[in-house]
């Protein structure tokens, strides 16, 4: 009997689970284990608003970035239109991105992949007197505190195993696994010694404002209002190199002021809770494979980390890419000896 290839996915955030699901559903002859020290609701993904929105990375070919965005968007759109939508925590969200100064790029690369992208009319802009330019479109919101448990169900249903364990180094894993898939986010700094990974601290408030039906985002990325299924996420901050996980009252005050300026009705909103997360940032996400010598043998390691504040947005697309890299690794591996 052929011993099945043992794959371990490290990390239980949106990247880890998306990648694990892609692999287990596509490769039935692999046994897939997901291993992590933190699970929902304690991952970085859980606090994120989860609005699909992209930045452009400097060193990744644009075509690949377009695939990442489009694949993720189409995957979640299909869920949003299905009966599973509320169980998966996925919904459509329309709104506006506004800029205080007219940006150099009026139609970003992802504008063709969201729905109904257009520039705001003069009347629409009148509502934001501090802002000179704006875009209107419909995108998706994916709430990880609901989505991750839903993905976990899907993962287990396809035969995946879940193990709660902190992985300190790759050597530990090489005894029991043939391929390592690293989705450890900020943890990669230590796990694989990547000095290019750094935190970008973000603080958000969740408020009760069920009358807010549209997202509003300032193009600078630090002020945003994202209505969700049961609460509205307002934020935020972008503090590079800041490792603090505690709530900062000055940030709270700043967020409330900036968001109320954009949406005055928020003055009446009840604050439900506050949260801080560290975006696992990197100049470019690392989605690539390598072979690492572990305990005397070459072990394929596929990396999928460093998505910064774009994890939810790029999860499925990079997971599919990662699956492709896992397949390549499988092709290159020597056939398994028969027992």
């Amino acid at each position, binding site marked *: 009997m052929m011993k099945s290839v043992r794959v371990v996915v490290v990390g239980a955030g949106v990247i880890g689970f998306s990648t694990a699901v892609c692999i287990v559903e596509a490769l039935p002859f692999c046994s897939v284990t997901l291993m992590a020290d933190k699970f929902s609701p304690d991952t970085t993904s859980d606090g994120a608003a989860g609005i699909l929105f992209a930045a452009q990375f400097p060193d990744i070919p644009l075509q690949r970035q377009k695939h990442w965005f489009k694949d993720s968007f189409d995957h979640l759109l299909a869920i949003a*239109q299905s009966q*599973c939508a509320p169980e998966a925590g996925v*919904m459509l969200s*329309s709104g506006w991105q506004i800029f205080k100064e007219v940006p150099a790029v009026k139609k970003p690369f992802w504008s063709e992949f969201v729905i109904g992208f257009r520039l705001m*009319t003069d009347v629409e802009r009148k509502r934001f007197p501090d802002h000179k330019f704006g875009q209107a479109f419909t995108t998706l919101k994916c709430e990880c505190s609901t989505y991750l448990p839903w993905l976990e169900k899907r993962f287990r249903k396809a035969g995946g195993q879940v193990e709660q364990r902190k992985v300190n180094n790759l050597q530990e894993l090489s005894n029991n696994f043939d391929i390592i898939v690293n989705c450890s986010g900020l943890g990669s700094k230590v796990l694989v010694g990547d000095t290019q990974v750094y935190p970008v601290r973000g603080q958000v408030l969740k408020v009760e404002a*069920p*009358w807010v*039906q*549209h997202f509003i985002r300032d193009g600078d990325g630090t002020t945003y209002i994202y209505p969700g299924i049961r609460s509205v996420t307002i934020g935020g901050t972008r503090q590079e190199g800041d490792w603090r996980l505690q709530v900062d009252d000055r940030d709270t005050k700043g967020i409330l002021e900036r968001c109320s300026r954009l949406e005055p*009705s928020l003055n009446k909103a009840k604050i439900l809770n506050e949260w801080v997360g560290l975006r696992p940032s990197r100049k470019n996400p690392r989605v690539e494979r390598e072979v690492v010598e572990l305990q005397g043998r070459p072990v394929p390691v596929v990396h999928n980390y460093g998505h910064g504040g774009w994890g939810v947005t790029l999860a499925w697309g990079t997971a599919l890419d990662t699956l492709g890299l896992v397949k390549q690794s499988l092709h290159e591996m020597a056939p398994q000896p028969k027992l």
Partner: protein
Amino acid sequence: MRVAVIGAGVIGLSTAQSIYEHYHSIVSPLTIEVYADKFTPLTTSDGAAGFWQPYLYDKGNVQETKWNKETFDYLLSFLKSPESIKMGIFLESGYNLCSEPAPDPSFKDSVLGFRQLTDRELQIFPGYKFGWFNTALMIEGKTYLPWLMEWLRKRGVKFYHRKIKSFKELAETGADVIINCSGMWSGQLQPDPDLKPGRGQILKVDAPWLKHWIITHDFTKGTYNSPYIIPGSRLVTLGGVFQMGNWSEQNSSVDHKEIWEKACQLEPSLKHARIVDDWSGLRPVRSKVRLEREAIWSGETPIEVIHNYGHGGFGLTIHRGCAEEAARLFGQIVEQKGKDEGLLTTEVPLQCRSPPVHGGQGSSRK
């Protein structure tokens, strides 16, 4: 001067508001009273989803399109203030879906960001080949009506829980002007064969992941006889029933089933939504809104009546425009009475004056 308003739905209350706003400093004393057998949350306005959208086409009633736009602009102006939440007003975007191409609707220049649907959006709604996307307003009756009542109460308007059986009844108690905002039941005060019930039934469900309204149009079945889904601030309204001539205010299990099944077809995620409530109401349908003065003779003196009823399924949508027009008509009465009785404290504003009949202008001062 004593003004008696019949009806405490959105039309009655907003008309009282407009009259107060324009005339409380001109006519002294100005007593406004509202008489109704139903108050919020039991009026027709309360049961409605609270979505600002006129019927697709005004069939030549350009005046109504003007009043709709006036209402939209008026409500939109409140969004800058946190007060908008107390009024039940907020923006919401969504989809109008048709099975075949159709001309642009009457409200395309009133709403925000009006555009055609892209192919991608139509793929989300199989069976529909054409449609529009825009941002409009919600105005939830169960919040707006209490806000209006509080506004009026603070300014001395009195409310009487009483069913008025005739205009004469009110005139005999001393009312100088009667504003008839009795909606569906105007026929009981004065027969109107043009006024007919357009029965509607809705479900309210808990589906907070839905943030867009979806209104479908079937030109073979007529307005609102096609499924619609309208998320509110707390619950989502599902509907699509418009039965002309049906006076029943009881919920029908047949209609319930049809509404639910069609809504789930349109929006599959509803399968998991919890149904919280059912409601039926009668839209006061008329070929056009009756907004006019009438002097009803009873004995020697005429009873001044201003009719403001027959707003069908667009009462909330049109209310402010009509209220302002009713106030303008009231101004004509005030000017006339002012001339007769020297009641005015200041000049009646120019836009409220009736056109000169005998060549004389202005009003007499006490």
